């Protein structure tokens, strides 16, 4: 293995992606969390896991569980493909692995951000309260003659920023491949012998 031929951002991306999957499996580590009152309720979500609890009752939405499976499998596949690509950038299949892997962390991150933003918008319409994506607010409710002021705090966790780093590293991997490694496209050169010919005679097509 030639160290100069390793795509280092890709290797780092596969490590951070593996860390995200491991954190999810071991700790169900959330990317974003919402706390209601002082332990009255909480929501902890990520594309890989979800946990919602209100007044001691766990709120289970099976569809979200299945969507989390998609998130886990997608990130795991990205991790494997990115790792194999990163250590074998000169192989004819590497471009396809890169193409398969590099968009996925960004796609997961963008989808997660969009779902969060839409949820906050829907909450603003139906509950009449602007829930910040990162901050605190107070939800005022009147129920049965009682007025309640419910403090709500939200925050992104460090795991979210690890996911951002993973998405950026994935993009950096593509740029590194394009600008630094300059690996010939697998679509043009399908076999190692053809790549070898191209290396010795760049004008050969």
């Amino acid at each position: 293995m030639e160290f100069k031929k390793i795509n280092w951002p890709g290797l780092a991306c596969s490590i951070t992606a593996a860390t995200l999957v491991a954190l999810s499996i071991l700790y169900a580590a959330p990317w974003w969390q919402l706390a209601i009152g002082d332990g009255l309720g909480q929501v902890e979500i990520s594309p890989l896991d979800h946990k919602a609890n209100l007044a001691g009752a766990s709120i289970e939405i099976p569809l979200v569980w299945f969507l989390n499976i998609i998130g886990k499998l997608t990130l795991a596949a990205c991790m494997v493909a990115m790792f194999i690509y990163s250590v074998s950038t000169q192989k004819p299949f590497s471009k396809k692995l890169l193409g398969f892997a590099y968009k996925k962390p960004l796609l997961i991150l963008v989808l997660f951000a969009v779902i969060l933003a839409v949820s906050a918008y829907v909450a603003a319409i139906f509950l009449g309260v602007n829930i910040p994506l990162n901050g605190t607010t107070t939800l005022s409710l009147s129920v049965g003659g009682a007025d309640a002021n419910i403090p709500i705090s939200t925050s992104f966790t460090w795991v979210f920023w690890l996911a951002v780093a993973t998405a950026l590293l994935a993009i950096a991997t593509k740029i590194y491949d394009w600008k630094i490694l300059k690996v010939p496209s697998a679509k043009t050169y399908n076999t190692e012998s053809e790549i070898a010919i191209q290396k010795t005679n760049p004008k050969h097509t």
Partner: protein
Amino acid sequence: MNLGTILVAISIIIVVGPIFSAVIVYKDNLIALVIPDIEELIDKIGDYFPNVEYVGYEIIDPESSFRVIFNVTNNSDEDFTINTINFSAYCSQHEEVFLGYGYGEGFPVTISGRSNRTVSFQITFPMQGQTHVETLHRGDTNFHATLKNVLVVVQGVEVKLGDEIDVGPIEIPP
């Protein structure tokens, strides 16, 4: 098979597989796939809030204050913290007469999951309340107070109760 085709197949299987499994598992009740069990949720939330039972009262100072005692039972597995409780007390019989104010003693109190504990409130009478009780209720064995402006802070959530709470019968010494 071409690697590109295999990777496309993997991408499709990763997305379609879990969705297909979800539909198969919940084929008899697809609504349950997207909506949680509301009845079970309401039952669990109902269990979370403790039962409050009036136990009695004791005189602290015959002239100026007494203590109202409640037994609070936490039926949930989670700890339950009452941060503060404040209220004003009025004479039930003479509705406009302010008797005094009350507050929870030793608050905040935390009732551990699946346990109960006694919670007490001290009601203090200012001169106006003392005069009223001495003048119109001395020796009254069936004195009732009405708690108004009840402010409860539990688990960090502030609740102002609109309903009035009747406390009694309280025996006023002759």
